[in-house]
C-alpha cells in the first residue's frame, strides 16, 4: 500500500514537471499574450474540484448504502482535496483576472460568486466532520451534506450560461471547440497531471484517516478486565491471617 502510494507520488511529480514544460512550450495567445498560460493551471484546478466533490457525493451515497467506513474516508479525503483545488482555481482566476480584466474580483459575477459559495460550503462540510466525535453519526450527517452540497457543482459549471456576467462561457467544449490545437495539448497534459496529483493527495489523506480511526479506537478502550471471571483475585495470605 505504502509502496504504491510512493509510486503514485513520483508519477504525480513527474506529470506536473511534464505539464509545466508543455505550458512553457505553448504558443502565446493572440490578444492575451503570456497571460493565457495561467489557463493551463486554472482550468484543471476547477475541473479537479468538480471531480473531487463528485467523489465526495459518491462516497456519501456508498456509505449510506453499504455502511463501510472506507466510503466515508473517501468522501472526507476527496472533500478536503476538492477544497484545495477550489482555492487554487479561485486564486489563479484572480491572478489572471487582474491583468486581463483589470480586476481581481467582481462581486456581480455569477461564476466567481457561485465558486466562492461552493468553496465555503465545503469548508463547512469539513467543519461539520470535525464537530462530531461519533464516527457513525459523523458519516451519516456528512454523507447527507455531501449529497446536498453537490447541487452547486452543475450550478457553478452552467453559471456562465445561465447568467451573462463577466466570466466567459466554456471555450473548451468538445470537437467544435474554438481553441487552437497548440493550446488543447498542454491543457490536456496538465489535466492528466492534476488528476494524478488529486489521486496522490486523496489516497494519502485516506491513509491518514485510517490511522486516525485506529488511534481513536485504541484511545477509546475502557479499562476492561482482560480475563473476566477466568481469574480470581489472589487472597495474598488472608487465609493465614484469619487463623
Amino acid at each position, binding site marked *: 500500500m505504502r509502496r504504491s502510494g510512493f509510486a503514485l*507520488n513520483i508519477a504525480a511529480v513527474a506529470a*506536473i514537471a511534464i505539464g*509545466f514544460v508543455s*505550458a512553457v512550450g505553448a504558443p502565446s495567445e493572440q490578444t492575451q*499574450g*503570456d*497571460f493565457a*498560460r*495561467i489557463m493551463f*493551471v*486554472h482550468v484543471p*484546478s476547477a475541473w479537479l474540484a468538480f471531480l473531487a466533490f463528485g467523489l465526495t457525493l459518491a462516497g456519501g451515497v456508498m456509505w449510506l448504502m453499504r455502511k463501510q467506513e472506507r466510503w466515508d474516508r473517501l468522501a472526507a479525503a476527496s472533500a478536503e482535496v476538492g477544497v*484545495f483545488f477550489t*482555492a*487554487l482555481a479561485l*486564486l*489563479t482566476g484572480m*491572478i*489572471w483576472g*487582474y*491583468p486581463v480584466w483589470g480586476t481581481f474580483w467582481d462581486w456581480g459575477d455569477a461564476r466567481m460568486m457561485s465558486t466562492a459559495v461552493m468553496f465555503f460550503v465545503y469548508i463547512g462540510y469539513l467543519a461539520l466532520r470535525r464537530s462530531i466525535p461519533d464516527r457513525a453519526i459523523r458519516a451519516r450527517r456528512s454523507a447527507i451534506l455531501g449529497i446536498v452540497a453537490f447541487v452547486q457543482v452543475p450550478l457553478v459549471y452552467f453559471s456562465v450560461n445561465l447568467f451573462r456576467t463577466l466570466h466567459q462561457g466554456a471555450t473548451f467544449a468538445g470537437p467544435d471547440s474554438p481553441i487552437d490545437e497548440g493550446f488543447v495539448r498542454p491543457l490536456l497534459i496538465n489535466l492528466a497531471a492534476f488528476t494524478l*496529483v488529486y489521486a*496522490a*493527495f486523496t489516497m*494519502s*489523506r485516506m*491513509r*491518514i484517516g485510517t*490511522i*486516525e480511526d*485506529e*488511534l481513536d479506537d*485504541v484511545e477509546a478502550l475502557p479499562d476492561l478486565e482482560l480475563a473476566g471471571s477466568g481469574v480470581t483475585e489472589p487472597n495474598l495470605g488472608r487465609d493465614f491471617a484469619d487463623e
Partner: protein
Amino acid sequence: MNEGWVVFAYVVVYGFMAGYGAYLAVRARSLRRRRES
C-alpha cells in the same frame, strides 16, 4: 508584456501543492509513530 503575473500564478499553484503534500507526509509519519509507540 508583464510576465510576472504568470510566474506568480505558477509559484502559487506549485507552492500550494508542495506545501499540502508536505503537510500530508508529515501528518502521516507522525500518526504512524504514535501508533507504533
